[in-house]
């Protein structure tokens, strides 16, 4: 269970990279260079902790729009993310047909996602069903926010997973707000994970700002899923330190003091402090990481800005698949 120094630092770098890329997206929006950004900021520990318990390339991911850090861990490149922000040609998730952060990445078993929330949960169950039918020891993971757990799709998908003991893990990233609606107006229980009992599956609440805690809970769930033990519902409690999207203004529904308080528990800050306390992250190494990340983000932005827009003809289609994509 002890993670090597290299792994710990790789986790830290993954979180840092997602954060700096995310921050750049906000800047680009404020500069008027892009029209929309929806952020994964504050969720980096929940996602990186989860990703490091998985096997990208083998396991499947059905993400939601805040899963930037998870996507980067699964192999989405910063250049590809920037192409989506700018709506440029050859964008990996959709050919620039979809808004940014409507993730999908075929080469990494990341299924295309839409905007109506919780629709992906039955898909994850179906993938798990396929894995079980084929005897595949892969795991399917799906991300979702706490607000979306009010949807019927969420219940129906998790119910399938429980009935058929599917190798599925649902990570609810509870950032306490569904745009403006606080979780106490969303549900009458303190923890989403308490609902796991109603499905007949294990549920776990974890500090979503603690990357190592998330990793440990995920490892338990992954082991269970891979060995036929069925699904797990994980609730990672976290906070969204920024508005819902670039079109939102969070000042109307929460105080600056609340946001400031949570920023003290920023997951990257916490993990950095942990690594420093263990002597794993000397200042020079951190500076080195920051320089590397900045170079990656700069490169991605330049690349996307220089990239052409898709030809109008690429909007025409194809609308229908002409041949089987699948075995």
């Amino acid at each position, binding site marked *: 269970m002890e993670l090597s120094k290299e792994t710990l630092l790789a986790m830290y770098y993954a979180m840092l990279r997602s954060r700096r890329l995310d921050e750049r997206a906000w800047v680009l929006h404020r500069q008027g260079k892009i029209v929309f950004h929806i952020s994964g900021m504050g969720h980096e520990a929940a996602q990186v902790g989860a990703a490091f318990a998985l096997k990208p390339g083998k396991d499947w991911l059905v993400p939601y729009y805040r899963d930037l850090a998870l996507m980067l861990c699964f192999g989405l490149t910063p250049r590809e993310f920037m192409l989506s922000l700018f709506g440029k040609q050859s964008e990996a998730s*959709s050919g620039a047909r979809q808004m940014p952060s409507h993730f999908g990445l075929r080469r990494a078993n990341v299924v295309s996602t839409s905007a109506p929330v919780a629709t992906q949960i*039955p898909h994850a*169950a179906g993938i798990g069903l*396929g894995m079980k039918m084929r005897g595949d020891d892969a795991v399917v993971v799906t991300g979702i926010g706490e607000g979306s757990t009010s949807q019927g799709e969420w219940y129906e998908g998790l119910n399938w997973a429980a009935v058929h003991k599917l190798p599925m893990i649902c990570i609810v990233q509870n950032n306490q707000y569904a745009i403006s609606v606080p979780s106490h107006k969303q549900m009458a229980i303190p923890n989403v994970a308490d609902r796991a009992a109603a499905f007949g599956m294990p549920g776990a609440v974890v500090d979503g700002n603690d990357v190592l805690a998330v990793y440990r809970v995920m490892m338990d769930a992954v082991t269970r899923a891979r060995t036929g033990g069925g699904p797990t519902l994980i609730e990672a409690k976290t906070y969204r330190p920024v508005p819902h999207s670039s079109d939102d203004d969070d000042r109307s529904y929460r105080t600056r003091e609340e946001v400031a308080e949570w920023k003290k528990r920023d997951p990257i800050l916490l993990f950095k402090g942990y690594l420093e306390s263990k002597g794993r992250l000397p200042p020079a190494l951190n500076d080195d990481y920051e320089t590397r990340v900045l170079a990656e983000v700069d490169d991605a932005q330049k690349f996307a800005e220089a990239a052409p827009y898709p030809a109008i003809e690429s909007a025409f289609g194809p*609308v229908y698949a002409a041949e089987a994509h699948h075995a």
Partner: protein
Amino acid sequence: MPEMTLIEAIRQGMDEELARDDCVFITGEDVGPRGGVFRATQGLFEKYGPKRIIDSPLAELSIVGVGIGAAVYGMRPICEIQFADFIFPAFNQILNEAARMFYRSGGEWAAPMVIRAPYGGGVGGGLYHSQSVEAFFAHIPGLKVVIPSNPKDAKGLLKSAVRDPNPVLFLEPKKGYRLIKGFVPEGEYTVPIGPAHVSREGADLTVFAYGIMHYYCLQAAALVAKEGISAEVVDLRTLLPVDKAAIVASVRKTGKAMIVHEDNLTGGYGGEVAAIIADEAFADLDAPVKRLCGPDVPGVPFSHPMQDWFMPNPEKIAKAMKELAAY
């Protein structure tokens, strides 16, 4: 060539596809030991077992949503919606997920699956076991909509639907399940999705129909033939993508067109056929395009006299044919 009922042909088609490809599986309510409420899957559970003939929870959106997940994973699900009336909880999954998967992922992902649903009235089913739902779905690019009218086509189209790399909504005229009998070729064959079929040649007018209404139109054409009216009958078979060329070709030949469906008139599929004729065969018309459809009331009433008032039948169709011929 054995003679069989429509439902026997559908069952045989599924049986052969299950035997041909072990990625094919069936899920839906009561499809297992019960063999489906209409017996469409009778005997398949015994033959293929619980891993491939899966009784679903009583939740339609999950039947389709889980099917989508299985499809993207590489399976070939046949999802049964017990009555078309109950498909609407799954509407979002069909519209926003299955049908848009290919386009929205830039062609990276597809959802090859069949959604079977018995539709239509005349069976004492009242408002919620009689609905014709095709118009809602024939509006969705990325989806295919197929309605067979006879056993040979039903089997051949169903086999094509299972092999199609796109989602196919396969609507079955339930009143015809045991009423409509016909010869089915022995051995392997398919009927392609797309082309309409001229099922009766005629010179004076064309009637376009599908499903049980096509069956009635053939009877009506025989009735009016005794009075010297030569009606051509075109079985549309695939509503989406529609066979425009076949529609236009027949109207150019006869100069008069009528569309029959039991779905209510306003916003019904007949409007689309009429628009195609107006666009591409206006100069060939010798009479206004006529639509004989269900009335614009919110459903097929239960009590027999009211149900009979609602439903088009051979006599009503023959009367309309005579009026059109006399124009």
